[in-house]
Structures are given as structure tokens and as C-alpha cells.
């Protein structure tokens, strides 16, 4: 089994505090991996390291044969890594359509982008994407006017537009209604296979609905890996979650 993404003995510390301490994780191509763990376990930091927001102090991150740990964020993105942030991060003054257009980063150089899209070749594509995430009506509205759930959807749509090989999702369903969450699960099931996904989530129902393999982090390290049933039965996982009401309430 060759891993599509391979985190090997990765560490990072903030002011002497080891947020990640010797983390190992391997994800296969086309897999949908859920990453769970109690608060402060280092899940978001792990995503930060993969996408280059945080530079690891030790260890290697390899994606499709490329070492990522020393690259700039934009280089990592060009290598095929996309990221959705916990706090939905969209371009508030741009319209929904423009947001999707920016995300559709086929060409990234300045000179290459000094062109007009008068025939609106991207338009059809953008409209399809907007339909996918249910924002057709909002296509011409600035993103600042969207509700929280819609903003989440927009960012997910932007990641689909980006068409990255590896997609990192940080709490994609936070602030969504049950119905919206179900739609998100359906979408993820469709993305699986064509893309490799890592999803950080607290909602165990959602995790069980979408995930094949679940990775549990605790105190900056990998605690357990396996199916939902295996993980829930794991004694150390139970201990880690003790006091926070068990795994399904985390």
C-alpha cells in the first residue's frame, strides 16, 4: 500500500508547547479519512501543517511523492492540496460567482490571468458549481450577505472548483442544519474516490455516515485508527474522552 499522503514523525511547538508531537498518519489515494479527537488534540494544527500554514519543527510531509514541509502555501496548493477553514473563509466583497471563479485556479500566474473572459467561458462551469452547492439564486450577491450555512457551502463549492487532489476540511458542517449536514454527507460521498479527503469533525453521526477509516488524535499524537466500531471500542480512546461525555458527544 503506497500512501497518497504521508505524515512521518511530525512535530510542532508554540512557545515550547508541543501542539503536535511525533504525529504519523498515512492516507490512501481516494480515501475519505475522518480525523477526530478531544479539543486541543491538534487536529486543526495537523491540517495547518499539511497545507503550509504552520511549518513543522521536525518530521516530513509527503504528498504524491512531493515533500511539502518546506514549500510555501501557494506551492503546496499547486501541488494539489485544498483547504477549507474552520471559520468559513471566503471573499466577502466579491460575489458568489466571483468567489467560485477565483477558486477555479487553472492558471495561477499574473500574466496568464491578464485576460478578459468576455465570452464568459467559465460562466457555465461556475453556474454548475453554484447549483451543486445550492447557491444559484445568490450567484450575483456579495458573499458578505450569505448566512453562515451558505458561507460554509460556498467554501465547499470553492474547494470543488479548485479541484484539488487532496481536500482538507475543517469542521465543514459547523452551523449547518440537519438537512444541510445530510446534503454535505452526500456531496462528500461523491467526492470520495476522485479526491482524497481528510475531514475534521465533531459530529459523530456525520463521521459514521461518511468515513471509512477514522483517526483519533490526542495530545498531539495519533491515538488509534480504524472503523467507527473499532475506534469506539478502543480502551485508550475511551480514556482520552473520559470526562467529556464519551466519544459521541465530543
Amino acid at each position, binding site marked *: 500500500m503506497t500512501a497518497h499522503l504521508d505524515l512521518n514523525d511530525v512535530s510542532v*511547538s*508554540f*512557545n515550547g508547547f508541543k501542539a503536535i508531537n511525533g504525529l504519523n498518519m498515512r492516507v490512501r489515494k481516494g480515501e475519505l479519512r475522518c480525523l477526530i479527537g478531544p479539543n486541543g488534540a491538534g487536529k486543526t494544527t495537523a491540517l495547518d501543517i499539511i497545507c503550509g500554514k*504552520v*511549518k513543522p519543527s521536525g518530521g516530513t510531509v509527503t504528498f504524491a511523492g512531493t515533500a511539502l514541509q518546506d514549500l510555501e502555501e501557494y506551492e503546496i496548493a499547486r501541488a494539489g492540496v485544498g483547504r477549507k477553514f474552520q471559520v468559513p473563509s471566503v471573499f466577502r466583497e466579491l460575489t458568489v460567482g466571483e468567489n467560485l471563479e477565483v477558486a477555479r485556479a487553472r492558471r495561477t500566474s499574473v500574466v496568464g490571468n491578464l485576460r478578459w473572459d468576455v465570452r464568459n467561458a467559465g460562466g457555465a462551469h461556475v453556474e454548475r458549481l453554484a447549483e451543486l452547492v445550492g447557491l444559484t439564486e445568490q450567484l450575483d450577491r456579495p458573499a458578505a450577505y450569505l448566512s453562515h450555512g451558505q458561507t460554509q457551502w460556498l467554501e465547499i463549492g470553492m474547494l470543488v472548483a479548485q479541484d484539488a487532489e487532496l481536500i482538507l476540511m475543517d469542521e465543514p458542517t459547523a452551523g449547518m442544519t440537519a438537512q444541510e449536514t445530510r446534503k454535505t454527507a452526500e456531496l462528500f460521498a461523491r467526492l470520495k474516490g476522485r479526491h482524497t479527503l481528510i475531514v475534521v469533525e465533531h459530529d459523530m453521526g456525520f463521521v459514521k455516515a461518511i468515513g471509512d477509516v477514522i483517526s483519533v488524535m490526542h495530545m498531539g499524537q495519533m491515538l488509534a485508527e480504524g472503523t467507527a466500531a473499532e475506534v469506539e471500542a478502543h480502551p485508550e480512546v475511551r480514556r482520552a474522552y473520559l470526562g467529556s461525555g464519551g466519544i459521541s458527544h465530543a
Partner: protein
Amino acid sequence: MDQFIEQIITGLSIGSILLLVALGLSIIYGSMGIINLAHGEFVMLGAYAAWVFHTYLGLGLLASLVPIFLVVAAFGWVIERFVLSLLNNRPLDTILATWGVGIMLQQAVRLMVGSELRYVQLPPALSGSMELFGLSVSSYRMFLFIVSLALFAATWLLMNRTTVGMKLRAIIQDRSVAASFGVNAKRVYALTFAYGAGLAGLAGALVSPLKSVSPDMGTGYVVDAFMVVVLGGVQSLAGTVASAFILGELSGGIAFLQNDTVAKAIVLLAIVVLIRFRPEGLFTARVRA
């Protein structure tokens, strides 16, 4: 050797004026994140207040210091309340707004008292000079040095040993959390800004006998003071003191070796490089990697 000591003393003198002006700016920038471009105009107001108190009320400079502080602080309070408090979370716009306010203050003074130069008398008790290391030093410059350090000490105590200071530090850390514990952020901000403005007013009054007083005198001060703050680090009062004297010595020294223009240019370039490579200032620890 004498020349060297003289140079050091000149530097200290420049540094104490810088510190006087920068202290208020540092408080405002460090705690509210506002780059107050009207700061120079607060200095100017303080200088004019000294002139007015002297010319129309016959009050000496030392006697009018407290009323000057209060008057300029009141200006600051009004400006915070009616302009800056409307600009939460728009840091770039606060620069523009304070600059506009500065223009208005400058122009209002020009319209009311004219743009001719005004002079404020040295307090008679301090008009002489004293011996220091075998050199004669103006008593008033000595006085400024001591006052600047005293004001720094007072400010430090205010920030670190009083409830208002504690509330302010709480707001700096996290405004919404502080608010949920019942800290009235609006009121504390207004008071902070007023205090910073008052300090600027004092600075203006104190330097007024050394330089002529004019409506546009503040412009130069705000630039210098800002450099002090940037060099010292945004949230470090002690850094402000250190950098005020470093800059004082540096500009004294460079001006001695080179001409004034080159000295200015070199200091500006140094600031540019500093901002690029250490925006948090020289005297603060990096918080997060």
C-alpha cells in the same frame, strides 16, 4: 572627551522630548491599535494652551500644566467618542479619520489665532543652567529629562497597578471576553484615548519654551514619535523608553557627523527595514511562531 559627553547629553535631551511625545502615542497605539495621526495636533494644542494661559491669564508654565493636561484630554475624549468609536475594526480608516481630525484642529487654530509664531517663556526658576560632569547644562532640559521619566513611571503604574489599567489590559487581550465580565470597553477606550491625548498636550506645553509655537508644529513630532513606538514595540512601555533614548542619541550622533537631511533619511530607512523584518519592535518577545 568633553565633546563626547556633550553629545550624549544632547542625545538624552532629544530623547526625553521624544519620550514625552511618544508616550501618549504608545498608549493609544498599543492598547487600541489606533495610529493616531492627530497626535501631533494634540501636542500643538498643548503648546497653544500654554501660550494662552500665559498670555491671557498670566499663568506660568508650571502652574498651567495640570489644566493643560485636562483641556487636551477633554479634546481627546470628544474625538474618541464621536469619531473613533464609530470605526471599530477598521484600522486603516482610523488612520484616515485621525489625519482628517488633525487637519481640522490645525486649521481651526490657524483661523482663530493666526499662523504667526508664538513664544512661551521658560519658567524663571529653570531658566539658568547647572554643572554636570564639568559641563554646563540647561536646567530646563534637565527638568524635562526628569519629568519625562516621571510621566513614564506614572503611566506604568496606571497601566499595571490600577483597576482601569487592568481593565484596559483585559480588553487588549480579548475585548468580548472582557465585556462579558462587565468591563465597559467603550468607556475604558475613551479614557485611554483621553489620557494619551492629555500626555501629548503636556508634551506640547513642556517643549513650547524650547521651540516656537505654530499651527503645523505637530507634524514633525508625530513622525518622530511614531518611529519611537515602532522601534520600541507596540505593547511595550519600557521599550518605548529605551527606543526614545536610542533614537535621541542616534539622531543627535548622526546629525553631528552628517548633515540634518542625511540623518533624517537614514533614520527613516532604518525604520523601513525594521518594520519589514521586525514589525513587532525591538523590545518585545515574539508571541507565536
